[in-house]
């Protein structure tokens, strides 16, 4: 029996040590733009890229991270339905905000790539590329070339894109967005706010449709 308890303690110690090592080694992986210290937050008041009807009574803000697997699952599985049912029909204005998680090595670089695409009116196309093609997350190497490939795919002016990436033109915006999310006490991604209120239900298209229906009905009654 004593040997059993020793084995349990050994597994507990090894398991805990392994998890701590994983967390620390991932957060300390250096090099590359993605891991650089954050820049000061921009003060240009950029509110994030939006999709849908500007005058829609229901506004959803999504705080997301391009490297986060659940954000990718939401973007590739649920978002197409949300776009069809709620955004294309003019019922919802959808806003995307960056919330790069510090332990994700390339999140900031991916966010920067999307912002640089946004400069040329292609934010959502780049958003779809980054979430839809996840090989860059799998490979433990600088994904700049992969992002440039996406930029080419969505039809960006590559000279402008390269300049934007090189100068990290919108790094301050990403930091501002992150700080905004932190002020809202976001604990994980994706996080959603519906008309300013933190939505903590299931992140599915059906759930969003239900809440939009509910808010629309309440508005009609009111």
């Amino acid at each position, binding site marked *: 029996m004593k040997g059993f308890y020793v084995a349990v303690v050994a597994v507990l110690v090894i398991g805990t040590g392994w*998890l701590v090592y994983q967390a620390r080694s991932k957060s300390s992986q250096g090099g590359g733009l993605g891991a650089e210290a954050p820049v000061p937050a921009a003060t240009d008041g950029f509110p994030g890229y939006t999709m849908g009807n500007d005058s829609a009574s229901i506004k959803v803000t999504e705080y997301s991270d391009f490297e986060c697997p659940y954000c990718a699952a939401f973007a590739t599985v649920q978002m197409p339905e949300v776009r069809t049912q709620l955004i294309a029909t003019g019922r919802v204005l959808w806003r995307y905000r960056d919330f790069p998680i510090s332990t994700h090595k390339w999140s900031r670089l991916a966010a920067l790539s999307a912002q640089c695409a946004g400069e040329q009116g292609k934010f959502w196309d780049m958003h779809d590329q980054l979430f839809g093609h996840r090989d860059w997350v799998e490979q433990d190497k600088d994904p700049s070339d992969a992002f440039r490939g996406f930029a080419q795919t969505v039809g960006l002016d590559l000279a402008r894109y390269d300049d934007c990436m090189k100068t990290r033109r919108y790094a301050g915006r990403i930091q501002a967005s992150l700080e905004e999310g932190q002020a809202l006490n976001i604990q994980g991604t994706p996080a959603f706010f519906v008309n300013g209120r933190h939505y903590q239900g299931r992140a599915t298209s059906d759930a969003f449709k239900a809440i939009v229906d509910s808010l629309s009905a309440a508005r009609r009654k009111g």
Partner: protein
Amino acid sequence: MRRQATALLALVGFFIALYLWLHALGVIGQLTCGTGSCEAVQASRYAMFAGVPVALYGVVGYFVLFVVSLVGATPANRSRRQPDLALAALASIGFAFTLYLTVIEVFVLHELCRWCVASAVIITLIWLLSLTGLRRAA
């Protein structure tokens, strides 16, 4: 001996599930995957079940298995049959759920995550151990 082995296996499974869950929460960066397609599997729609990350089911499930088998392994409970029944029921649920997830990986996603495979091996061993316990209890 059987319950002790179950407790140790459940504890290893608990750490694997916790690793995947912490990754989902962003506490851990990229998964150490080596061969396999951990990110593709973790980013798929099947990584969530009823709105809850699959890894969290694993964390809770393995923890309960660990506690039940640990309590059942104490000298005071060694001759009782209830722990065997509880372990068989819990392990069967876990095994069935893992079977479903593995079928999804192989036949739907066509991707395999090595951590999911490791967890599948562990729950299969626990399930087989629980079946032998069930035979003794009968």
